[in-house]
């Protein structure tokens, strides 16, 4: 039982990271219908920006407060996401390019980001200091590392904020309106370009934050983006592309399947790599809309 409760904390923390990656996909996908696979590299960029702030190459003896790193990641990644939309996606949409063109262009962006990271920071993984150390914390019967509890707390807070944004603000309603019907939303006076730019900025900021939160567990390294992109996409498919809460649910399900499977199934542990792909295929075949249906289908 102790093992199960320990594993629950670990799976929740991993699930929160997957959920954040799924949310980053969703924020871009809902109003634009663009699947942005570059978010994996955005998460890696977030990790490097955060580590840069905390134990920066410019001031090697300075360890800044963690909130500074979070703010820096949100601002820098938000700006990068905005710039990517302006420089790659918007020109293609203006020229009436096929719907797959922005997706392909963003795959190019993925490569540019990855190579830039290796050029700027090198190929060596960088250690990322956790904000509250890495000691074991026990809350009742649940035990985990302080970083895992920190990931869970930050993720739940962020999901609450994003949910409030979509459900309670005019801007959130504008996002939803564009998602439901772009043309009708434009006729209602919603600025499609601004919504798209904001979607990319928001998606990049969320992905960057996921990378920063993950980095104390794995270090910041230029190859960290791809697995997170796969896990986030799987979580998105499981939870459904329509609702914010679906992203979190999908992330948690994926992480619990992975970690409980690795612990209790009588299979070689290396096979856990196949879990996201198996779930992805299963959901695409049996429930392509995911567990939580989008608004228009309700």
């Amino acid at each position: 039982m102790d093992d199960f409760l320990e594993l629950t904390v670990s799976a929740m923390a991993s699930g929160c990271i997957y959920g954040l990656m799924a949310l980053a996909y969703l924020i871009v996908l809902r109003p634009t219908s663009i699947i942005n696979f570059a978010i994996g590299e955005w998460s890696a960029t977030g990790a490097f920006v955060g580590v840069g702030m905390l134990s920066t190459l410019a001031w090697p003896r300075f360890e800044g407060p963690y909130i500074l790193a979070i703010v820096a990641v949100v601002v820098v990644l938000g700006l990068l996401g905005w710039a990517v939309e302006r420089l790659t996606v918007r020109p293609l949409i203006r020229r009436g390019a096929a719907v797959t063109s922005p997706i392909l262009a963003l795959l190019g962006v993925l490569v540019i980001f990855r190579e830039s990271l290796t050029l700027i920071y090198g190929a060596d993984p960088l250690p990322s200091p956790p904000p509250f150390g890495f000691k074991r914390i026990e809350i009742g019967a649940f035990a985990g590392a302080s970083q895992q509890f920190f990931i869970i707390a930050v993720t739940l807070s962020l999901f609450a904020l994003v949910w409030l944004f979509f459900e309670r603000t005019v801007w959130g309603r504008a996002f939803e309106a564009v998602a439901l019907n772009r043309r009708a939303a434009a006729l209602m006076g919603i600025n499609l370009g601004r919504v798209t730019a904001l979607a990319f900025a928001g998606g990049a900021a969320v992905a960057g934050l996921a990378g920063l939160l993950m980095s104390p567990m794995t270090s910041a390294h230029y190859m960290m983006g791809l697995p997170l992109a796969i896990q986030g996409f799987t979580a998105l498919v499981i939870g459904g592309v329509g609702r914010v809460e679906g992203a979190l649910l999908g992330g948690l399900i994926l992480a619990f399947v992975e970690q409980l499977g690795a612990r209790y199934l009588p299979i070689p542990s290396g096979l856990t790599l196949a879990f996201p792909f198996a779930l992805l295929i299963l959901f695409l075949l049996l429930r392509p809309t995911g567990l939580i249906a989008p608004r228009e289908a309700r």
Partner: protein
Amino acid sequence: MARTRFASALAFATGFLLSAAGAYAQDVIKIGVITDRVGSGKFYAEPVTRGIELGAKMINEKGGVLGKKIQLIIEDDQNKPDVSAAKARKLVDDGVIVIMSNTGSPATQQAQTVSLETKTPHLTPANSADTLTTQLDNPWFFQTGPLASIQLATLMTYTKSRGFKKVAIVRDNSALSQSFAESFRKGLDGVGIETAVEEVIPQGTTSAVANLQKVRAAKVDAILQAGILGPEMLQFFRAYQQLGMKEPILGSYNLSIPAYLTMAKDLMEGVVFVDAYDETKPEAKAFRDIYVKEYKEEPSSLPAYGWDGIHLVAQAIEKAGSLDKEKVRAAIAATTGFSGAIGAKGSSWGFRNGGRSGFDPQGAVVRLIKNNQHGPVVHSGQK
């Protein structure tokens, strides 16, 4: 008239430049170094290259070899076998008389096709794959790095001496880690130690808690860490700490790469790993003092491989008394009793009985990680 004068001046200038270049070429001994500056082998290749650079500098300060300065020509193969062969050819075209390969064993293996064809002496000071001198019958190639089999046997002797009966192996899913784990399994079988569980931490995983829980449940006496990938290794140590585990951890020689100490800072205290460097050995002490003076930091074992390698090459050229490649090759092949910074106390290198792998079977050691540093030797050799 003016045109004739100009032509004469041009001919004179060309002749002068050519003779100057010729004189310059004769004044230096060109040694080629293949390193990895950007790829997956950078971790270990660059420190080894640093040791070669320091060694060459010291040799040159003492007057060089045969009265000539050593000039290193360094090429980057990104740890890719095909690139490594191309770089080896470029080095030969540049006129090097010896090639030193510092990147991964597969890259070095491929570069051998060039040293064999061009009859160029070729040395790897740090590669450990046992097959480097057996897969290709290349009399021009020599290996002074500690063979994987010697390191494994040393680690197994240590494991046995600690009285461990049942152990776990933890690895990642890289090819090299898989190969380490397989060697561990065979080695453990050989000394009668049971491998109770083997756990794989796959690349890209976000938690190793489930893996380490299985290890904890197996109630093993020790854990053999066969991982290669830094991020997954970090997950292992994080989960180990988080679960409050106390089982001793024994690592492969991969843990002698100093980057892990930074990445997993404060997490590796008490871990033992196999290495080929004893900092209390007089030659190692001498090397360490020079290294610290030059770079203002403590060396790991890796630069010492390069340091020894370039000294061995310099000694062979001196002994050959010429820059003739065949004579240099013969001098390297005749090396015995070479005592450098690498190797346990009392061990020495030599290419005995026509062999081309020169590391002393008793030269590997087991070291303890202490205060985030590679610490003292706790076991030496295979006895």
